[in-house]
């Protein structure tokens, strides 16, 4: 995204909005991670507390979920950078 045409005041406003969305994005990721790892790891409802096996599964699941998101994020960023530099080569 190209914000170069914006005034400093506008850029500050954009920064604030971007930070807010990043925080909302973090919360949304948190919610999805919990749902996914709950669905994957918790299948026994004969007790109301997590077994140590379930707890371990949740820990691994959370780590893997985040490793996956980060890898997708890294590849996605590379891909967008390629698209951008490709456009510059064409236009300039």
């Amino acid at each position: 995204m190209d914000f170069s045409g914006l005034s400093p005041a506008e850029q500050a406003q954009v920064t604030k909005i971007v930070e807010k969305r990043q925080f909302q994005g973090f919360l949304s990721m948190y919610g999805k991670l919990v749902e996914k790892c709950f669905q994957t790891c918790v299948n026994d409802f004969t007790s109301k507390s997590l077994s140590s096996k379930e707890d371990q599964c949740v820990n691994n699941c959370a780590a893997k979920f985040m490793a996956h998101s980060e890898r997708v994020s890294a590849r996605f960023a590379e891909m967008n950078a390629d698209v951008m530099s490709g456009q510059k080569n064409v236009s300039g």
Partner: protein
Amino acid sequence: MASLFGGGASSSSSNALNQERLDMALTEMDTVTDLFNRMVSSCQSKCIARYAEAELSKGESVCIDRCVAKYHAVYAAVGEKLKIRGEGQQQR
């Protein structure tokens, strides 16, 4: 949920801060709503086998109670993990 946003802003009469505090309260409300919605949907898929009768069976009711407790436990465990991770990243 209160721990999620830390100590929050201290008392202040500035309008800007109040708007921020309001935004924070609304974000917290949205987070709790999202947690609740995902809990309802997850416990539905874990505990409700059929929709042919209008009432919850005894077994379904017990399952729901434990499902809510376990979902909450997963939410707390994952939150703890993310917090440690976030602190680790800030130190770098």
